[in-house]
């Protein structure tokens, strides 16, 4: 497939646009009128979309108004995260969140937010939707920004007083930002 062989994402975009333009890849495209005419589904209102549109992506799109710093995040972390991830984010018992820098090429790689994650926006997105594990979507926007700030600071990526918000988060330089390559497979010779 084209998208596994080229550099992302521009080449992918180009390829897909070309494919979409070639009518053959959308079977039944000639039936466009007919499908539209089925009249199934109702138009989604702006309110419908706002209620469910919770994702945030690397461009910063989707990040809500609000903010936090590591200082404020320490309290959130201690009360809502530490029992599963350890007092400093290292001890567990669940996923280690801190440390592991410069271990990826070693014989015992340690993958954490600090050592492995390519985008800081993923932290906001994931914590907001999925953490704490036993009470997902229970944190306020400011709490998510604050605990995100704390995790970035503990990983030595930001300062203690760095304000994390919709504008700053997408710009945080993650140590492993360029560690990923688009799928090059098939990469292993067969017998």
């Amino acid at each position, binding site marked *: 497939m084209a*998208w596994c062989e080229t550099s992302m994402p521009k080449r992918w975009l180009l390829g*897909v646009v070309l494919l979409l333009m070639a009518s053959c890849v959308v079977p*039944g495209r000639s039936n466009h009128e007919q499908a539209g005419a089925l009249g199934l589904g109702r138009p989604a209102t702006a309110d419908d979309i706002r209620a469910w549109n919770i994702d945030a992506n690397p461009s910063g799109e989707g990040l809500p108004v609000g903010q936090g710093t590591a200082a404020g995040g320490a309290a959130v972390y201690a009360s809502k995260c530490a029992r599963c991830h350890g007092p400093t984010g290292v001890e567990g018992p669940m996923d280690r969140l801190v440390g592991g820098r410069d271990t990826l090429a070693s014989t015992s790689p340690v*993958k954490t937010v600090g050592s492995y994650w390519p985008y800081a926006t993923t932290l906001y997105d994931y914590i907001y939707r999925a953490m704490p594990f036993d009470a*997902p979507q229970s944190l306020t926007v400011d709490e998510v920004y604050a605990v995100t700030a704390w995790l970035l600071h503990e990983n030595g990526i930001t300062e203690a007083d760095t304000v994390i918000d919709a504008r700053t988060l997408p710009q945080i330089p993650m140590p492993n930002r360029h560690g990923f390559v688009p799928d090059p497979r098939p*990469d292993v010779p067969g*017998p």
Partner: protein
Amino acid sequence: MDTDRAEESGRHDGSTSAPLVDRRRFLAGSAALIAQGSATLVFGAAPADVTEGDPMRTPGSPARRYGDRSPFEAPVRLSGGSHSLTPLEHLHGIVTPSSLHFERHHNGVPAIDPLRHRLLIHGLVDRPLIFTIHELQRFPSVSRHAFIECAGNSRSGWQGAQDLTLQELHGLTSTSEWTGVKLSTLLEATGVRPEAAWMLAEGSDAAGLTRSVPLTGDVLSEAVVCYGQNGEALRPEQGYPLRLLLPGLEGNINVKWLRRLKLGTAPFMTRWETSKYTDLMPDGSAYQFSLVMEAKSVITNPCGRQQIHPGFHEIRGLAWSGRGRVRKVEVSLDAGGTWQEAQLQEPVISKCHTRFRFPWRWNGQEVILQSRCVDDTGYRQPSREALVKVRGVHSNYHYNGIQSWKIDRDGLVRNVDA
């Protein structure tokens, strides 16, 4: 602890020996048979009095509203809480019974009322729409067989052979007939902006699981938004009432409990395609969006931890490829020294488990059995050695090395590196 690693490794804290028969149902059966003990029953030693338990001399049970298997049939999934493994060694043909389809979920199986469930399609579309399940079922429908395999299936192979069962080693793959509406049909209804190249798929479980799907030609022509599995509604563990099916792509991207599709220009870089499901290489870089499950085969009979006896055995197995059809499966009886072509059972369906078989007589000598497959793109299943040479031992996902079963003189079958 890295939960992901523990849960997909095929190692279990619980007992791996399932009871031979389901006690509860069994007790409801014949009291005369109970006296004989379950092992005898399953392997069928005849009762002393031949009229005892003779099904021709007692009227059978009445019709049932919802069927269940015979109480003499016992295969079960091995469950580790957030995942369970298909007992591949006990299945016939290519379809996995829905009750035995493997599971993997990231914060439990949600209980969803289908009347309240909705699918929202928005983002770079002309007309954002919301659908009820009923409306989705009114669209023109499609059905197809397809395997779904967790990217973490067989992952213990990266660490080297462990003496485990087939189910424990490779049980995170299953095949169903899936029914639903084609993604392309829904996208025709909403219209797609020309700059849309990726689609976020979101589940309504407590993980709020999200994946970015590249809108390639393959995806647009094959993706199905499914409500049916093996002739009935999806099972809750498989996404009831709605899931995405992306034939050939890693399990995790076939998002279950689907509630939202959002079209965008670039991948959304969710945790599930950055922190997880990326393949770490020896140089510290990682493959990303390695979505296709590459061709793989395993011998399911005989297999790990079984005990066999000299004489005739039909070597049976499953082969599959996320890139298309299985073209050929070969079997080796000498640890890969020589290879002979196995017979493929029809139907051979693209991106679906394919059954193969090979007649064999075991002479009681030590032997190492292997299978390898080629798909219709010409891709050939590699050896573990070749895989590890390129990807090292820390990539965690997408392991498809050749499986070796060693049979000792005592007939015990063990997983080995050969």
